[in-house]
C-alpha cells in the first residue's frame, strides 16, 4: 500500500528544502499560490510535524525543513 501523498505539501516543502532553509513554521505568505487544503495550511503554520506526516508530506522533506522540531 502506498501511503497518503499530498503533492501540494511536497511541492512547497521541496521548494523550501532546496533553498537549504530550516523552519519552525511556514507563513501564509509563503503558502500563497499553493493548492493546499485548510488542514495542510494549519499544520504548516503550526510546524506540526506529526500532522504533516499524516497529511501526506514526505518524511525526508519534513526532516529537512523542520529539523529543529525533532528531539532526536
Amino acid at each position, binding site marked *: *500500500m502506498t501511503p497518503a501523498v499530498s*503533492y501540494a505539501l*511536497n511541492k512547497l516543502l521541496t521548494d523550501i528544502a532546496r533553498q537549504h532553509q530550516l523552519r519552525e513554521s511556514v507563513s501564509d505568505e509563503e503558502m500563497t499560490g499553493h493548492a493546499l487544503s485548510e488542514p495542510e495550511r494549519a499544520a504548516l503554520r503550526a510546524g506540526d*510535524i506529526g500532522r504533516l*506526516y499524516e497529511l501526506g508530506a*514526505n*518524511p*525526508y522533506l519534513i526532516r529537512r525543513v523542520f529539523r529543529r522540531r525533532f528531539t532526536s
Partner: protein
Amino acid sequence: MAEIVAAALTAHAPLITGKPEVGKPEQRDRLYAGFREIGRRLQAARPDLLVMFVNDHLQNFAYNNLPAFCVGLAPTYQCPSPGGAKLMRLQPRTVRGNPEWAMALLEAGLEAGIDFAYSYEIESWDELSVPLSFLMPQGDVPIVTVYTNCAAPPLPSPNRCREVGAFVGEHIRGRAGAGRVALVATGGLSHWVGTPETGRINPEWDHRVLDHIARGDIEPLTRLTRDEIERDGGNGGQEIRNWIALMGAVPGWKGELLAYEPVAEWITGCATVWVHP
C-alpha cells in the same frame, strides 16, 4: 574483458560525519574502523571505476518527476554539494564521473528492456559524500551512479532492484577491454527519518538482513513488501534496495560484516560489509 574486482555495502547518514562527537566513542570508532577497512581493501583492489548503487533524498527528483531507476551521466559530482557540506561537516570537493561509461550502461539498459531514466546533473547528499569520505578520501577514482527510488513511494520492488543490479553486473562483465570495476551500495539499515517514530532503530531486523547478506542468500529479501520493510526497518530501511541491487550484480558472493552499530545519536542502524566471491 572488464571484471568486478571488489564490492561493498555501507550505511549513509549525514550525522556519521556531521556529528561524530554525539556518538558513543566506542560505537563510532568501531564503525569508522569498518569504513576505513573497506577503503583500504577497495584501494588495494585498484579499481579504475566505482559503480555506486544509491538513492536520492528528494534533493534531485521531486514529486513532478520521480524515476524508479536513474543513471547519472554527470561529468563531475560535488561530494558534498555546498548546501550539504555544513550538515555533513565535510569539505566540498569534486569527484569525477564517467559519462561515457554511464551512457554505455544506459544505452545497453534501454536496449535490454531496463528503462533507466538519466540525469546530467546530480546533487550529492550523504548517499555519496559520507561513504566516499572514508572509502575514497583522495577522490581519485571516477564514479558512475545508479539511483533507485527508495524515498518517495510507490517504490520499485526489491526483486526488480535485484534484476537491475544483475543487469549492471552482466553489463560490466560483458564489456570489452580491461576494466577494473568496484561496486559500492549505500543506505540502510533500519532507521526512521522524519516520521513519528524518528530515532527508532531495529537491530533485530538489521541482523536478519545482515545474515542473508552474509550467506549471499538475498532471495528472501527480494520478496519483502514495502509495508514489511516499513514496519520493521522504517522508511530508511527501504534503502536496502541499493544493497539488493549490488548483491544481484554479483550472484553467489557473500558478505563479511566488518561493523554493525545501532547508533541512536545518528538515528541509524549502521553497517559496513565487504562482499566477496
